[in-house]
C-alpha cells in the first residue's frame, strides 16, 4: 500500500502528541451557516499529520463532531443516516451495551453530557500553559467573532507532574500509555508488540482500515462509513470518556489487601494491571521492576501470554491482559486483531503522592479517548466483553479489576504458585475504583471533509 496522505489526516489520529497540557472545548451549535463559517476560520489552525521535521509545535488544534453536531451543520439527511448506528445513537444511548449503569449511568453524568448539549470537541494541546492559553484565546475570539456556536464546557487535562517534571503516570501511580497499535502506512517508530502477532512470533502493523475510514481493514473490507466516500475517507471515530478516579478508595483497598498478600504490596499492585507501577511488564519480569526493560522500546511491549496460560506471572484478569490479550486466546492472536483501539488521553486533576491525604471527592481522573474505525466492533466490544465480562478469558462474570463497574461485589483472582512470594490470592468486595462522568462518540473528519462541510459540498448522490 502506498503511503498515506498525512496532510489530509488530523494529526491527533496519527500520533500521540506527548504534549504535557491540554484543554478540550465543547461547543454547542446554534446556527448552521455561521458555525460552518467558524469551522472555515478554524481550518487553517487544525493540526494535520504532517511530519514535525522542525520540532514539535507550541500547540495543536483538532476538531471532531457528535452526530447531533453534524445534524446542526445541515448535512444532507442521506449522509446523516448513513453513519453507523452506534454513532447515530451516541454513547449515552449505548449505556446498556457498555455496562454504564450504577454509579456510571448517565443519570450521574455531568450536566453537559446528561443533556446532550455537546455538538463538537476541539482538542488543544500545548507545550506550556502559556502556549495553551494563547491558542485557546485565539480560538475563543474566532468563536465570538463568528457567532452561531457557544462553548458549553471546557475540560483541562495535563500530564501528572512529579518532582517538577511531566510524567506518563496516572493517578493510581501506574506508568501509562505503552501500547498503541501500529498501522500500515502510518509513519511512526514502530516497536515489537504493538501491531499484530504473526505465526512466526514477530509483529507486523495492522491494516490501515482498523483505524482510518476508506482503507481496507483486517478482513480486507472497507469499514462501514458514511457516504459520500470523500467525507469518510481519512477520518475516524473517537470515544471520549471522562473517568473519575477514586484514589482514596484505591489506596485503602490496596493497603487492606496487601496485609493478607504475602507477595508484598507493590507486587499486588502490579498483579492488578499486569505491569509494575514503573511500567515493567510482569510477563518479562515477574519478581521485580526492571527500568532497563521500561526504557527499551524493543522490549517494553514485546511479550506474549502463551507461556503463562495459568496466569502465574501475569494474572489472567489483569487489566492489560484483558484489554489487549495478544496471543492469550490462541490462534496466534488472530481473534483480537479486529478489536484494537488507539488510545489518546491525559489525566486531569492534581496528583497526590502516596502517603499524603487524599479524598475521592476531589476532581481527579483520566480523560480516556480512543480512536477506531468501528465503534461497535472495536471499542464497544472491548468494553462489553473484555472489561465488563470475563467469559473470553474463562473468568465467568468477573470484570476488569481497575475499570470494571463492580458496585462493591467484584472479584479478582491472582493466580499463583505454592510459594510465599507468589501465592494465589482472591481480591473480593471490589469497589468502583473508576466512575464515568460523561462523554460521547465523535466523528473526526479528514481535512478535505472539514472543507466539504464548511463549503456545503457534502453530496451523497
Amino acid at each position, binding site marked *: 500500500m502506498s503511503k498515506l496522505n498525512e496532510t489530509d489526516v488530523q494529526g491527533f489520529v496519527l500520533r500521540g502528541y506527548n504534549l504535557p497540557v491540554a484543554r478540550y472545548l465543547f461547543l454547542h451549535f446554534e446556527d448552521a451557516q455561521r458555525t460552518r463559517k467558524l469551522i472555515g476560520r478554524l481550518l487553517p489552525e487544525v493540526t494535520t499529520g504532517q511530519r514535525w521535521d522542525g520540532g514539535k509545535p507550541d500547540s495543536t488544534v483538532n476538531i471532531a463532531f457528535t452526530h447531533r453536531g453534524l445534524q446542526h451543520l445541515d448535512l444532507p439527511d442521506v449522509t446523516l443516516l448513513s453513519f453507523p448506528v452506534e454513532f447515530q445513537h451516541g454513547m449515552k444511548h449505548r449505556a446498556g451495551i457498555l455496562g454504564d449503569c450504577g454509579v456510571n449511568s448517565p443519570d450521574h453524568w455531568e450536566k453537559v453530557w446528561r443533556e446532550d448539549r455537546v455538538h463538537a470537541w476541539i482538542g488543544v494541546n500545548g507545550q506550556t500553559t502559556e502556549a495553551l492559553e494563547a491558542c485557546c484565546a485565539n480560538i475563543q475570539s474566532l468563536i465570538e467573532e463568528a457567532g452561531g456556536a457557544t462553548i458549553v464546557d471546557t475540560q483541562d487535562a495535563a500530564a501528572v507532574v512529579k518532582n517538577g517534571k511531566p510524567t506518563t503516570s496516572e493517578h493510581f501511580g501506574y506508568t501509562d500509555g505503552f501500547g498503541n497499535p501500529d498501522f500500515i502506512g502510518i509513519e511512526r517508530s514502530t516497536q515489537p508488540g504493538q501491531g499484530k502477532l504473526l505465526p512466526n512470533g514477530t509483529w507486523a502493523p495492522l491494516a490501515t482500515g482498523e483505524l482510518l475510514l476508506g482503507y481496507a481493514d483486517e478482513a480486507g473490507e472497507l469499514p462501514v462509513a458514511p457516504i459520500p466516500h470523500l467525507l469518510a475517507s481519512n477520518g475516524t471515530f473517537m470515544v471520549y470518556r471522562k473517568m473519575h478516579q477514586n484514589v482514596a478508595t484505591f489506596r485503602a483497598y490496596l493497603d487492606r489487601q496487601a496485609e493478607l498478600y504475602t507477595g508484598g504490596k507493590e507486587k499486588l499492585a502490579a498483579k492488578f494491571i499486569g505491569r509494575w507501577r514503573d511500567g515493567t511488564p510482569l510477563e518479562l519480569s515477574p519478581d521485580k521492576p526492571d527500568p532497563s526493560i521500561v526504557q527499551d522500546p524493543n522490549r517494553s511491549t514485546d511479550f506474549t501470554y502463551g507461556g503463562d496460560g495459568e496466569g502465574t506471572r501475569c494474572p489472567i484478569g489483569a487489566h492489560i491482559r484483558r484489554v489487549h490479550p495478544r496471543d492469550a486466546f490462541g490462534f496466534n492472536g488472530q481473534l483480537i486483531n479486529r478489536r484494537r483501539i488507539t488510545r489518546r488521553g491525559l489525566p486531569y486533576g492534581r496528583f497526590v503522592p502516596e502517603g499524603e491525604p487524599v479524598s475521592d471527592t476531589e476532581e481527579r481522573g483520566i480523560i480516556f479517548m480512543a480512536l477506531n474505525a468501528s465503534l461497535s466492533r472495536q471499542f464497544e466490544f472491548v468494553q462489553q466483553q473484555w472489561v*465488563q465480562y470475563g467469559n473470553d478469558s474463562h473468568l465467568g462474570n468477573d470484570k476488569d479489576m481497575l475499570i470494571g463497574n463492580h458496585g462493591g461485589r467484584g472479584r479478582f483472582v491472582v493466580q499463583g504458585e505454592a510459594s510465599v512470594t507468589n501465592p494465589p*490470592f*482472591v481480591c473480593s468486595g471490589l469497589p468502583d475504583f473508576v466512575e464515568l462522568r460523561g462523554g460521547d462518540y465523535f466523528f473526526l473528519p479528514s481535512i478535505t471533509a472539514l472543507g466539504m462541510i464548511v463549503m456545503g459540498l457534502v453530496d451523497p448522490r
Partner: protein
Amino acid sequence: MPNQNGSVYGLTILSPIIDDERATPSHDLQIRNYLAHLSTREESPFAQAPGTHLARLVVMDDVIYVGAPACEEHLKSKYLIFESNCDGDLDGYLSGLATSIPDHLDAVWKHCVGYPGAANHQAFVEYMKACQLETTFFFAAVNDKTVNQTLRALQTQSAVADFIASHQGADSATLQREFLEFVAHLKALPPPRPGSMGPHRDIKTGGRNE
C-alpha cells in the same frame, strides 16, 4: 451414536406449522409471540421440567434468497425447530416434559400439524419422535454430568470461591475448623434450582447494533 455426546442427548425436532390463511394472526406469529414472552430463568418451562441442559425454540419461515448467483428455493412449510441438550434417555425426557409442562407444550405445539396434545403421553412421545431429525453432530459444554450434577458443581465452585475469599490469612486451626463446618453445611444444602445460577447481568448483549 450421533444423537449422543457422552451422557448428553442432542435432540432436534422439526414440526411443520399449520398453514391457514384464515388464522389471524397466523399460527407462526402466534408461536413467535408466545416464545417472545417466555422466561429464560427459573420460570422457564425448561427449568421446570427435568433434564434440560439447554434448549432453543425457533420459528423458521423459509429459506432466504440472497440474490444471484444463489438459486431461489423455498420450504414446503414453515417449521418450529426445537433443539435440546438433555439427560440420557429420550423417551424418559419427552415424558418428563409432558408431565411437567403440558400447558406450555400445548400452547406452542397446538399451532403445528398433527399435534396430539400432551395429555396423552404416549401419543405425545410418538409425535415428537416422528418429527425428530438425526442431530449428527453437536457440542455439549459438559457431556458427562447430569443437569443436577452440573448445578451441584456450580454451587460448590461458587461456595468454595467465597470461602477462600473470606478466609485468606486465617490461621490453620481456624481454617480447618471452619472448612469442616463449611463442607458439612454445603452437603446439607439442597441443589440450586435450574435456571437460578445464571447471573443477573446488567448489560445488553445481542446483535451488533442491538
